């Protein structure tokens, strides 16, 4: 996979080092989801952010236990049968698999993630569940491997905060959406000012 040229990030930060740190963190979530992190995961998290129990039925436990989002994209509007969905930062696949069930056989979902261990977990979960209208692609949120105007909906959950170039990531979401398409996103905000020194501290980005 060709990585895009380093974005003109508004923060003076080693983007390659940041991505490596994030990959390492989420590789651990994929390989050892029960070890305990500085964020909630799995069914505990799903309850906190309001996932309906019915959404989780039929989703392999391997996807559920590696769930590490921060919100609930599905609470923002119905994802309808026949729609095309891109899941940015699909992780272990839980949101992509839920969306795939929602859009049904006439629709399809593309999950994009940069962490190989998460992609492997998501692909295994799709195979295990027999959900066929979903595909997982390796890629970056700053350079989505999806054609222009393909999607009706872009979902993402706890991912946008991990890039220092949110403008570029949002631009990619905009690019892959059809005219009038929508984003339904879970993420984070901070209520207190973050100093420039803190913005350059990679440890604070991942924890």
């Amino acid at each position, binding site marked *: 996979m060709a990585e895009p040229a380093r974005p003109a990030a508004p923060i003076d930060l080693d983007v390659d080092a940041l991505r490596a740190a994030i990959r390492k963190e989420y590789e651990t979530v994929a390989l050892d989801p029960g070890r*305990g992190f*500085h964020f909630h995961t799995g069914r505990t998290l799903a309850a906190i*952010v309001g996932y309906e129990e019915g959404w989780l039925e039929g989703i392999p436990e391997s996807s559920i236990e590696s769930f590490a989002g921060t919100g609930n994209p599905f609470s923002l509007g119905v994802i309808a049968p026949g729609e095309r969905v891109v899941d940015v930062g699909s992780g272990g696949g839980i949101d992509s698999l839920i969306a795939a069930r929602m859009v049904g056989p006439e629709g399809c979902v593309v999950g994009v993630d940069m962490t190989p261990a998460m992609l492997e977990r998501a692909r295994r979960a799709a195979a295990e569940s027999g959900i066929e209208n979903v595909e997982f692609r390796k890629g970056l949120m700053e350079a989505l491997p999806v054609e222009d105007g393909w999607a009706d909906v872009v979902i993402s959950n706890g991912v946008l905060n991990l890039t220092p170039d949110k403008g570029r990531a949002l631009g990619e979401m905009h690019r892959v959406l059809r005219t009038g398409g929508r984003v339904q996103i879970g993420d984070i905000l901070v209520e207190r000012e973050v100093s420039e020194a803190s913005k350059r501290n990679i440890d604070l980005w991942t924890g």
Partner: protein
Amino acid sequence: MAGFVDFEITWRASVFAGAPQSSSAEKFGTQGINFQARKAASEAEWDAALAALGCETPPPG
């Protein structure tokens, strides 16, 4: 280039409290949020949305 319109944060909550390991979340008042927006249907809709903003926007590029 047209952008997103109808942006709205619909939910926010403390999603890091009680996590197994401590983090910087409390220091920065970090909360989980849900937000939505829509790709403008036309340049005209985008221009109208920009004109309706009550704050300055940075120049493009």
